[in-house]
């Protein structure tokens, strides 16, 4: 016997949630998977080119440690304001979310300025040889992620100050922090490759 119609009422369900319950989390997860793969393959290309070379780095001294290491520290420190912004967003505290997001933005800008010095301290150019090409590509790829996430954070913060507000915006802040963690943690292997591998003998 087929059952009579019976309705499953969902009108009391929440209209947004944080973490993997949210669709945005899965979108961010997909982007992280794609871009993590790009980084991994770019590192693979670096190591492959090194394996084919007689000496490494080709025709240049290893990059200076100063700016890259300073930047690594800034990047690691930026986890703190991001975590604060994430917590504030998850507590739906608009004022503190705005404020911490602004601090995140300052960290990102400081990092981008130092990134300029980092490129200058590579001692090679993209058109010098294959070593120069792959180092510039690695650093460039990571910088593109920084630029886009910095812009993204800025737009989000302007929206929090001026735009129409609803709960979903807090989820956006939370996902933005998640993506920033990816930018931070993907930097560590890239840092090790760019600065460490040329010093291996």
């Amino acid at each position, binding site marked *: 016997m087929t059952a009579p*119609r019976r309705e499953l009422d969902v*009108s009391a369900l929440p*209209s947004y949630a944080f973490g993997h319950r949210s669709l945005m989390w899965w979108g961010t997860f997909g982007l992280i998977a794609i871009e993590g*793969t790009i980084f991994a393959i770019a590192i693979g290309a670096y190591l492959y080119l090194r394996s084919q070379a007689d000496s490494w780095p080709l025709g240049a001294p290893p990059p200076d440690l100063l700016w890259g290491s300073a930047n690594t520290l800034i990047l690691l420190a930026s986890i703190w304001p991001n975590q604060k912004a994430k917590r504030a967003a998850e507590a739906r505290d608009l004022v503190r979310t705005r404020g911490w997001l602004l601090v995140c933005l300052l960290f990102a800008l400081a990092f981008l300025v130092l990134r300029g010095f980092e490129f200058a301290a590579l001692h090679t150019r993209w058109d010098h040889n294959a070593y120069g090409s792959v180092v510039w590509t690695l650093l460039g790829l990571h910088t593109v992620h920084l630029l886009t996430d910095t812009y993204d954070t800025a737009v989000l913060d302007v929206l929090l100050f001026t735009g129409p507000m609803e709960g979903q915006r807090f989820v956006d802040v939370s996902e933005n922090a998640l993506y920033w963690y990816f930018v931070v943690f993907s930097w560590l292997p890239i840092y090790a490759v760019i600065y460490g591998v040329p010093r291996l003998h």
Partner: protein
Amino acid sequence: MNDERAMQQQPGRTPAPPHLKDGPGPGSPEAAALDATWRDPPGLLGWLAAVNHKAIARRFIVTTFCFFVAGGLLAFVMRLQLARPGARLVGPDLYNQLFTMHGSTMMFLFAVPVMQAVAVYLLPLMLGTRSVAFPRLNAFAYWIFLFGGLMLYAVFALGAAPDVGWFSYVPLAGPDYSPGKRTDFWAQMITFTELSALLEAIVVITTVFKLRAPGMALNRIPLFAWAMLVTAFMVLFAMPAVMLASTTLITDRLVGTHFYNPAEGGDAVLWQHLFWFFGHPEVYLIFLPGLGFLSAIIPTFARRPIFGYTAMVLALIATAFLAFGLWVHHMFAVNLPELGKSFFTAASMLIAIPSAVQIFCWIATLCSGRLDFKTPLLFALGFFFILVLGGLTGIMLASVPLDLQVHDSYFVVAHLHYVLIGGAVFPLFGAFYYWYPKITGRLMSERLGRWNFWLFFVGFNVTFFPMHLLGLRGMPRRVYTYQAGLGWDTLNLVATLGSWIIALSALLFVVNALRSLRRGAPAGPNPWGAGTLEWATESPPPPCNFHAIPVVHGRDPLWEPPRAAADGGPPPFTHVGGLAAHTRELLATTVLDARPDLRVNFPDPTIWPLVSALAVTVLFIGSIFTPWAVVWGSIPIAIALTAWFWPRRAETAVHLRLEQGP
């Protein structure tokens, strides 16, 4: 933002009163309100702003079939040229463009995108929901794909099409041996299409994980959804390799990097590794959706549930993993360590096991069912014959000594067409006949369908079987002509005759598809008596897909309807109610068990995905001519994306009235 307001003033966009909630089902005022809410806006501007998954998917499917026909015509011209020795129909330069365009079209503009396009249409219907996740991203992915494909054909029309083969090996494709812009257009076409495919993968994964009808636990989703889910994950990890490869190729050509220049520490084999790390999984990106089609068609026409559901799912996942361990078998002719080659030989043979598991499950389903020999089933059976032949030559090619002997010969051409046409195009044709009534509301002609199948089956074998022999007799691929008396003349003529039969079959298919739009027999909701959810709604489906979202109680919901509890307990739920009818509110469920979790607000139609795609197109094409396009081209993209994401006050107000915190 103005167009948004204009759209809301147009007829058909009058918002329904906010108190209406879905649930009452077809025929009710609530159902009418749902249709008005989920319908794309009218007019040209509305067409350009469309985000409904069915509208985008229909365009996507039609676009990919147009590219399929274009790629087929290119092949037809090549066959005419090769019909007899020393022919002068096309010269070497045009011939190089023809085979490059043919391969690139079929792989990048047809085989992978058509599968994603069909998935975008079917998945929400199969899973019991009203939209794909991220509908605007879905629209963007379509536009970017369209513009990339049009760019490639525009340069072909101008006589500047790429001419170095669909895998564009360096050093031939590098700046020294391919001056001019031809290869740059190829590399940017890759960037366009792979960006589209990656975004569609995110759409598919999120849709399958989060937007299923309540009760459709992950171990109950249709096998087609599993196939597309696994495919989407493969896309995430395979496509980045080719995007990086094409980007480094174009920087070598345009800004003087040296990735592939041995004189400056670069390495040509790096290209082959990067390309085939993508290229081999690519074969399975095309093949797995084909398997998904079969797993939908076979149970319906065998009139029983699929045999070995769990084994089928595990086989799909195993295939996906193994597919990433095979790429070097495309490079057996390269000087690589012998031990490595042995590993890849072993992996290439291993992948036959999960494929065989699926084939035996289908055979078991067919053997224990009552077969209904309609056109979709004929194509499914054709698949078995052709794929097995392609698989056998695949096992032969997996062994290094044999591979070296026939490398770059017509034997490889025969093998790859048997695998790809057998593994993907036969199931795709079957799928087209199977779901056409759902999409259009009318059945295709069975008589023409049978002619289509038998001509295609015979024509295919007549065309491609002789190529095995041509390869064994030493005919290399990609030659624009050959001398008489090498023992290749008759076989080539036979292959060309076969291509006429294929062309006739394809023509019948097009005639059938167009004629049935008006003259086909009305299909009704479920013309085949199938068991999955897409057959529970009208054909064609209303804008909101389901007027009441069903609650699922088994793997084949239409064959296992909810039954009243025997012990007098509360009756089972049959459908969902309580979602707003005046705005695009949709139910999200939990990933594993599909328990109701959230009421999510979906975005309205907007022109911004199209504008963003145009801005990205300007950057991609501009960067072929000046690297600075990457800098100035990113400004309009940033503006368009910001406008896309910026919430409208009216929309937010609607959301706020429905808002409920976690």
